[in-house]
């Protein structure tokens, strides 16, 4: 019996050192990668950001606010840490991690999504981006808050976290061999060159009008508890002399016209900004952007050229308000 148990233990334990080394190597490769969000996380952890103007938010930040334009107009160092698919709580967590490794920014441009303050706890979007950093307590604390993402086995069973993540393993190997993927973001910004898809909009319109499918379009429930987090964020910025600018980017007018309560979040933000005496740039129905579908690649995201024009508009408003 002892012999059998020894054999089984040997079978199970023997590959662990090898898997551990593999796991370390894959982590290491990805921690040097320049692609996707790894570029942002790596800059963040290596204290390379230290931005004067920090852009926060979810996908509307990532694809609509260009640090290149901000830098050239305002002559500052800006960086976009927008976290695609995130809610406000995740963005706030990310901001706190940012502060642990980088100096405080002078300005924060924070864009909002309609589900930012939704009551239910969502899952993490693109959870792969966290995998190489699971040795960091702050990352583990952040990701553990969200639905069924972090499996304890990810932390203790080497390589298990890379189960079915072959593209990450290949990227890591390529980085370690000096041939990593080319950066597809500039300081966290990734403009999208796609064209307006009228067929997709027709489908959305159909689903909204016939209520045949739950499509998350503007009218989500705002949780007052989650809004409190925004208040503490504002408090923190005030105490640390950070000028926080809230931004509601343009939404396609065709969508605003067919959803039930398109301005709920905008109204809440207006009220919060007023109460806290901070700047709120409301562009939800901006005539220069919202009316023309050719500015968008989908109902809630501007394409690259419109995004860069939009960033310039934001910069001129900041210039005017802060006398920069």
């Amino acid at each position, binding site marked *: *019996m002892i*012999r*059998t148990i020894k*054999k*089984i233990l040997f*079978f199970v334990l023997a*590959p662990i050192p090898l*898997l551990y080394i593999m796991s370390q190597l894959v982590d290491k490769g990805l921690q040097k990668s320049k692609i996707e969000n790894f570029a942002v996380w790596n800059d963040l952890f290596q204290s390379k950001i230290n931005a004067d103007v920090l852009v926060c938010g979810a996908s509307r930040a990532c694809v609509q606010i260009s640090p290149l334009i901000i830098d050239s107009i305002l002559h500052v160092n800006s960086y976009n840490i927008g976290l695609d698919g995130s809610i406000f709580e995740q963005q706030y967590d990310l901001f706190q991690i940012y502060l642990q490794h980088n100096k405080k920014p002078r300005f924060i441009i924070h864009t909002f999504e309609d589900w930012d303050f939704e009551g239910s706890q969502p899952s993490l979007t693109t959870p792969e981006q966290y995998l190489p950093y699971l040795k960091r307590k702050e990352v583990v604390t952040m990701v553990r808050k969200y639905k069924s993402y972090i*499996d304890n086995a990810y932390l203790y069973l080497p*390589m*298990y976290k*890379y*189960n*079915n993540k*072959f593209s990450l393993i290949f990227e890591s190997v390529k980085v370690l061999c000096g041939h990593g993927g080319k950066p597809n973001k500039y300081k966290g910004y990734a403009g999208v060159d796609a064209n307006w898809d009228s067929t997709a909009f027709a489908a959305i319109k159909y689903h909204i009008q016939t209520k045949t499918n739950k499509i998350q379009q503007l009218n989500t429930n705002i949780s007052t508890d989650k809004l409190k987090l925004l208040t503490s964020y504002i408090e923190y910025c005030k105490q640390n002399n950070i000028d926080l600018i809230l931004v509601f980017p343009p939404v396609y007018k065709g969508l605003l016209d067919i959803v039930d309560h398109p301005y709920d979040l905008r109204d809440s933000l207006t009220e919060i900004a007023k109460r806290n005496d901070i700047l709120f740039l409301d562009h939800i129905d901006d005539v220069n952007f919202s009316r023309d579908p050719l500015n968008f690649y989908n109902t809630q995201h501007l394409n690259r050229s419109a995004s860069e024009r939009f960033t310039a508009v934001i910069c001129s408003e900041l210039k005017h308000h802060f006398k920069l």
Partner: protein
Amino acid sequence: MFFKPEYILILGFTIVVDYYAGIKIENAELQSQKLKYLILSLIANIGVLCVFKYYNFINFNITGLCGLFHIKIDWPLLKLALPIGLSFHTFQAMSYTIEVYRGNQKAERHFGIYALYVMFYPQLVAGPIERPQNMLHQFHEEHEFSSEMVTSGLRLMMWGLFKKVVIADRIALITDNIFDMPQDYNGFTLLVTAILYAFQIYCDFSGYSDIALGSARTMGFKLMRNFEFPFVSKSVTEFWRRWHVSLSTWFYDYLFNPMVASLRNFGKKAIIFSLMVTFILSGFWHGVGWKFIIFGCFHGGAVVFEMLTKKTRKKINGALPLKLSDFISKSLTFIFLCFTWIFFREKNVSMSMTYIKRLTGVPHEIYDSIKMHRSLSNFHSRIEIVYAIVFILIMNFVQKIDRTQSADKFLANYPMTVRYAVYYFFAFSILFFGVFTQQSFIYFQF
């Protein structure tokens, strides 16, 4: 399919009823008394099954039927969850009382051992549906630690896990969405999906069976094999001798055979009738709904057809070269299986019909694809299909070896390094390619 702790009482009820029924049957002197106790036991088991599994379906259909004749029936619907493994352990319990009644098995006097027979954990939730002759004596025997049994059991568990998480669950990633919305996919995609589903259901169920057999084997118990390479079947009749063997033999021993015997005066008609009834009930055993009854009808019809055309088919096969006739028979059987599994897998009959209607467009799509250089399929992720095919080929390779001689024995001929390399290949495949998204076993729902 749910696990609710209070549902253990249902299991407790059938165990107590069948335990005493077994003793009473054995003690009864008159055949009529024995029969009375057997009927009581069967009513208890089938009653539980009907209440929890079939009541709402029967209620719904009777109400609907009466509605056609303007008769209003207002029977309440029951909001009951289906207890996990109900169809399996009630069938296993019934086989005990039937065998005691037939005199093939002595009544078990030890309550604990009888309860263990019904609740033996490796096979409690999804079989194999064991017979008392195979299991009860094993519970009485003393089991000594056997290194061979443990390692062989672990190997079998790993093989089952490989089939489940690397093949079945990977295919599920592709097929689930497509079966949910067949109207969104073209015929060729649906055709490939139907073929993939055959492997999914096989790997899912046989994977579970291997894990059950393996875990029992590590403890020194031998369970019956539930699958005997079903995809090499040259007929639907042969398929049912190789697929879910424990259920097929259960229906054969306890339903088909007695029915044929009691209707023997009707000759061939009795066999046809018994076959149809057996297959319809077997389909209905799988789940509640007309789609399962249709599934059973198709299989019953196919087996009847094969029985009636046996001589003609033999003549045709004889005229063809052996390899060609084998290939044609296997292919036709496989196509038939894929077709009937559409009913099995789809949500309902109308969705199955949508699926089948779209399949009729395949020749046109192939023509279009060649003429206009269009993509033939509209799968979302082709790489998943490539992985699935590679692993299916690996499985087939292993099974080919297993058919000629046991894979265990085959490996034993090789040095330890080779054996370990093979084991690590499968272990690493599970680690790197396994899909661990809490995909339940398909047969758990029955």
